[in-house]
């Protein structure tokens, strides 16, 4: 059974600081997603990471994937208040999982990020 663990679960940051959220998963995967969720809202797709060593950046957020370590990171640079939200990673089991497992996302618990002035 695929397990996805994020840490930290709660992150309180000051504006201007840097920090990293970690996402570990337990079995082979061929793609990993990062989503953002604002309170009372649905999920917004941030990044899709498809291969080992993949790195994607959008504004102050940068995501990377190490498939050998089964680890993805979401790095926040010079945080601003607008980044306050819950961040989820989600893993799609590898194509080798076959059958109907492929496409079924398993989500981490989420990291609640609060950025203070």
């Amino acid at each position, binding site marked *: 059974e695929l397990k996805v663990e994020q840490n930290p679960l709660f992150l309180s940051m000051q504006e201007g600081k840097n920090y990293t959220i970690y996402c570990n998963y337990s079995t082979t995967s061929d793609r990993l*997603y990062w989503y953002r969720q604002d309170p009372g*809202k649905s999920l917004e797709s941030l990044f899709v990471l498809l291969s080992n060593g993949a790195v994607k950046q959008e504004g102050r957020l940068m995501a990377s994937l190490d498939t050998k370590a089964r680890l993805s990171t979401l790095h926040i640079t010079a945080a601003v208040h607008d980044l306050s939200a819950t961040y*989820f990673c989600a893993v*799609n089991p590898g194509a080798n999982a076959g059958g*109907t497992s*492929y*496409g*079924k996302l398993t989500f981490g618990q989420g990291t609640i990020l609060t950025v203070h002035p």
Partner: protein
Amino acid sequence: GAGVSQSPSNKVTEKGKDVELRCDPISGHTALYWYRQRLGQGLEFLIYFQGNSAPDKSGLPSDRFSAERTGESVSTLTIQRTQQEDSAVYLCASSLERSKPQHFGDGTRLSIL
């Protein structure tokens, strides 16, 4: 609006009643997913439809839960004899096909009294 549409946005009902939640996927998306999100938690997979294939029902928590999809369009999630632990936000997502990114609707917030 070309996004995933869910209705109702909020539903409050008494324990023991049946509820039906609706999802309109993005046009042309063959894959449709239902997830449940309890307060302060991540998303739990419930059920997944891909084209005309048999749905993957492996995430449904009990036989009180069922879902249908008409072709590649609307899906309904039905919960019979609701219990208080069914209170959650039910999110629907769709994708072009199962290897493509999933686009989420705004969810239905279900409260069982």
